[in-house]
């Protein structure tokens, strides 16, 4: 039996390769995701290990507000300079150095634009001399107030040379300040940057003032251990001396912690990639199921013969499953290998993008290997199980009869499909209405999965009318008509092939519906409620949002025709111990006049220095009312008590909490992030815009735009997201195309005689190809049509569920849907090429003479 299985496997190489390819692609995604995140993770490890290699023990103040990776950057609280001397006196400490090290030192390049790092921080630091790690390549150390040195990669990116004047924006001064570049440095191992981080070194007092906002403070203290003192002992001694208010860690610990927070982001990324792998594999499952079904159908005579000569039903199942295992194994190995390649390539690209992240060696984590084989094998075997069962039910008599595959009734499959679709709908309803009891995401995903499988089961029933309707377009020509008839010939096969394409298209359509609706709703809301003709904002290129000089606000206010100017600040604060996003407006009147806020209690037109406003949702959930007092800890400074003086109605445009603008100096970013300018009625926007533009000359990170351009810019991040999702889902569509090719190739094989006859009675080669192409196009357009319908349904359901979150408008992307259908037609044509060529090449005589 084993030998027979192996033989039949070899005889069916081509079609198994095609279906195996689907598994290979899915597995590739899985192993690629693991390899990529593992490699990047270890690269970050080594970057940080390097960056902190010279530190034995590091002392820092406990952060006042803990911020996670998703909320933004952690800002450390400053340490008093006097602490350095206390640390020095700890026995076992050879030396202690006060270090200024904070994000937000942005160098303006020779083109007048701020150099961005695309992710890694842009550190502003105090020069404490060269070290093993850091060596000057040119020039000298900064000595005067207006002197800086920067790392080589930054100098290259900014196109500046030693001796030139260089503009720098700093954490506490968003107005450009000019420095003389006196030196350029590099790192050990001839590196120009470590992990794409940009570094600017000032003299210590300048660094303190511009990066930390006050004199005589440091971000941290690095301690060197005396000979014979271990890092751990020194750490414990320092910690004991300083007390519980400080975080004292060894250099290794600091490196590990820094790396861990980045890895958290990576693992999130990994999960997203695995999600897409799951989609690809779902589509692959359809493809394998189809291939094995066809193979079993074609082997009916052979399998029946086996039964007739004594093979048991179980042996038949065994032989089909064995085939599946072989295919799964080979596909897993290939997928794993391809995944390692893809993972390495992506890591390389990521390294390039992140400004030259030095990659650790490409590693293959155990998870990649286990995941690949588990997924590859399980998917293939599960998909082959149904066909195997069908094979075992072939009666031995079938060996003696004509190979007739009667049209089995679709009742059972339709009932099952309705049931599964129903389960999917119920799950979706539960998940989307928030009744899933903490399992919202998995309930929704389960619902989507069930819905897909259910619709796939219903597809054979739908396929008959839809396919003949679609095909009618082509019926004007004989090959077109024949193609149409062929695609309606085996509704199950057509259905599964189309269903595979449906999954990808449905997801893309669904996501497009959701994002377009979100975009449309936000735009509509902004259009309706933001009453500002001009907006000052910039494109965020790293962890830190672009800022501008608050002085611009007053200057703009003084321009003729300007009625109201508001600068918006924001920070992650701890209010009564709970992390909360707080905002501050430079002019509190803007709340009503620009953002259309409506008071629900108290007074929202005034705000005293110890008063604050809250949105109605926040007030309700936190149990606040006018007169409540709360304890607010901002990123910097001491905790303060504020009294709630007013509550405004929540909308998409209101912040949870609004603090007086005087509090903004203690925000992590003490400069305004956005500015809104309202003009007097009758004032032309084009008159004011250039004047504001001129005011922003020293704030090159931002620009002033009219409201529509601003809204477009704000929602453009959604476009990027959409494009990314579409690219990732394209893989699922590629697999579906493989499915179409496979189905057609098998059909051509099955219909050799027929094709021979058609050629014998005068069908031209081109007409033969046309016939196959029509069949492919009908199948793929049918799949896309299903996908668009199902996707729109899913998207609309999600949008409906998000009504309370502000997505109020259901926007259907008709244009996109049209594009998908057009794309499906092209996909069909492309998928038909190989089978069509094969069909056209059929030897007429061979086809007819063949028995």
């Amino acid at each position: 039996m084993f030998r027979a299985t192996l033989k039949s496997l070899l005889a069916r190489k081509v079609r198994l390769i095609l279906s195996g390819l689907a598994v290979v692609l899915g597995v590739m995604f899985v192993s690629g995701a693991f390899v990529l995140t593992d490699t990047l993770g270890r690269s970050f490890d080594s970057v940080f290990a390097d960056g902190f290699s010279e530190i034995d023990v590091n002392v820092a103040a406990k952060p006042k507000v803990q911020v996670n990776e998703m909320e933004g950057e952690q800002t450390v609280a400053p340490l008093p300079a006097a602490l350095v001397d206390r640390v020095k006196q700890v026995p076992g400490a050879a030396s202690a150095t006060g270090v200024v090290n904070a994000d937000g030192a942005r160098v303006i390049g020779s083109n007048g634009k701020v150099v961005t790092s695309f992710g890694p921080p842009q550190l502003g630091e105090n020069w404490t001399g060269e070290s093993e790690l850091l060596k000057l390549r040119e020039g000298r150390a900064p000595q005067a107030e207006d002197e800086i040195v920067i790392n080589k990669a930054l100098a290259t990116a900014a196109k500046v040379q030693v001796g030139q004047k260089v503009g720098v924006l700093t954490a506490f001064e968003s107005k450009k300040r000019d420095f003389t570049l006196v030196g350029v440095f590099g790192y050990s191992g001839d590196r120009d940057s470590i992990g794409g981080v940009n570094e600017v070194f000032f003299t210590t007092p300048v660094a303190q003032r511009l990066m930390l906002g006050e004199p005589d403070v440091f971000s941290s203290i690095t301690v060197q251990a005396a000979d014979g003192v271990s890092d751990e002992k020194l750490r414990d001694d320092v910690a004991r001396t300083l007390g519980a208010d400080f975080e004292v860690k060894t250099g290794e610990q600091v490196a590990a912690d820094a790396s861990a927070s980045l890895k958290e982001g990576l693992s999130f990324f990994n999960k997203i990639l695995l999600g897409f792998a799951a989609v690809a594999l779902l589509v692959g499952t359809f493809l394998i199921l189809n291939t094995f079904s066809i193979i079993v159908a074609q082997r009916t005579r052979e399998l029946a013969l086996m039964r007739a000569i004594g093979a048991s039903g179980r042996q038949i199942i065994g032989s089909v499953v064995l085939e599946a295992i072989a295919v799964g194994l080979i596909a897993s190995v290939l997928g794993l290998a391809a995944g390692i390649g893809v993972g390495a390539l992506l890591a390389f690209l990521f390294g390039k993008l992140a400004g030259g992240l030095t990659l650790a060696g490409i590693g293959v984590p155990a998870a990649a290997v286990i995941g690949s084989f588990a997924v590859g094998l399980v998917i293939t075997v599960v998909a082959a199980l149904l066909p195997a069962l069908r094979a075992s039910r072939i009666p031995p008599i079938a060996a003696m009869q004509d190979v007739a595959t009667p049209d089995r009734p679709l009742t059972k499959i339709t009932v099952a499909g309705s049931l599964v679709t129903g389960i999917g709908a119920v799950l979706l309803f539960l998940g989307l209405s928030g009744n899933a009891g903490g399992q919202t995401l998995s309930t929704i995903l389960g619902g989507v999965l069930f819905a897909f499988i259910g619709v796939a089961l219903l597809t054979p029933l739908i396929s008959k009318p839809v396919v003949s309707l679609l095909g009618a377009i082509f019926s004007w020509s004989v090959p077109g008509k024949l193609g149409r008839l062929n695609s309606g010939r085996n509704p199950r096969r057509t259905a599964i092939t189309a269903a595979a394409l449906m999954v990808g298209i449905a997801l893309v359509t669904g996501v497009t519906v959701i994002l377009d609706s979100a975009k449309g709703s936000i735009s509509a809301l902004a259009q309706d409620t933001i009453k500002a003709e001009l907006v000052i904002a910039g494109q965020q290129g790293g962890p830190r949002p672009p800022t501008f000089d608050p002085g611009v606000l007053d200057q703009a206010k003084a321009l003729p025709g300007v009625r109201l100017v508001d600068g918006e600040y924001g920070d992650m604060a701890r209010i009564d111990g709970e992390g909360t996003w707080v905002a501050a407006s430079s002019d509190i009147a803007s709340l009503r006049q620009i953002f259309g806020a409506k008071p629900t209690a108290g007074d929202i037109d005034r705000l005293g220095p110890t008063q604050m406003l809250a949105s109605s949702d926040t007030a309700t959930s936190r149990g606040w009312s006018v007169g409540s007092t709360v304890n607010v800890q901002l990123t910097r400074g001491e905790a303060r008590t504020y009294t709630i003086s007013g509550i405004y109605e929540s909308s998409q445009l209101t912040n949870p909490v609004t603090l007086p603008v005087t509090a903004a100096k203690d925000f992590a970013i003490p400069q305004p992030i956005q500015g809104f300018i309202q003009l007097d009625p009758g004032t032309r926007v084009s008159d004011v815009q250039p004047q504001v533009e001129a005011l922003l000359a020293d704030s090159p990170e931002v620009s002033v735009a009219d409201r529509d351009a601003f809204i477009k810019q704000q929602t453009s991040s959604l476009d990027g997201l959409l494009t990314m999702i579409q690219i990732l889902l394209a893989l699922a569509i590629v697999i579906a195309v493989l499915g179409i090719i496979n189905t057609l190739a098998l059909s051509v094989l099955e219909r050799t005689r027929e094709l021979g006859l058609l050629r014998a009675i005068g069908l031209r080669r081109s007409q033969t190809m046309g016939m196959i192409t029509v069949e492919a196009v009908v199948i793929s357009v049918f799949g896309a049509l299903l996908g668009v319908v199902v996707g729109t349904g899913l998207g609309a359901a999600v949008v409906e569920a998000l009504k309370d979150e502000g997505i109020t408008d259901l926007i259907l992307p008709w244009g996109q849907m049209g594009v998908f259908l057009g794309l499906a037609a092209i996909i069909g044509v492309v998928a038909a090429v190989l089978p069509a060529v094969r069909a056209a090449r059929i030897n007429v005589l061979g086809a007819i003479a063949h028995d």
Partner: protein
Amino acid sequence: MTATVGQQAQAAARANDVWKVYGSGEAQVVALRGVSAEFERGRFTAIMGPSGSGKSTLMHCLAGLDSVTRGTVSIGETTVTGLGDAGLTKLRRDKVGFIFQQFNLLPTLTAKENILLPLSIAGRKPDPAWYDTVIETVGLKDRLDHRPAQLSGGQQQRVACARALVSRPEVIFADEPTGNLDSRSGAEVLNFLRDSVREHGQTIVMVTHDPTAAAYADRVVFLADGEIVSELIEPTAETVLDTMKKLDTAAEVGN
């Protein structure tokens, strides 16, 4: 064989010193050894011979389904030898009709659609009078909307015959048309083929190994070992059988 110019104009299909060799070296098989034959217009010719005699090969070569190693084949005014795929397709479309042992109908099309398929592929409309005549002759009037799966073997073969006839080809090649039929259905089909020759002047070349079937023809050409060895005009089943027996004996003696 010698032939006058007048006879040449009469021939619907002609083979001139046709050789067909498969393989090379040790594995070389010579299927046809310089066969020359003419198939006159308006006649029903049967090609007979024991299996392996080359009769099917000769028909395939005549119909342009297979290429010849040497010699020339022509149908009507057209020289088949040397035609490319497009030329052959046009030839098959316009001048040749086929009837196969396996019926070879398209399962997705109705009987009527199958019959009209060659014409629709060529983009031609059937001559309504001729179409009615054909349908009447094959006796399928009430079966036209059935699909092949709903027809008996004999009915399917009659559909295939109608398909070959409806485009009025220069010549119809029939390859063992009764091989898959019971004797009654077979007789029906053969009668029908003979009638189409006698009443409508159709030219038919039929390959068969069944003497009873060959007896329906106007002329029988006998092939053995790739050569034409004998010929009968106005054959009967008995004379055909006798000739076959002689050929077998000759073959045995030769062995």
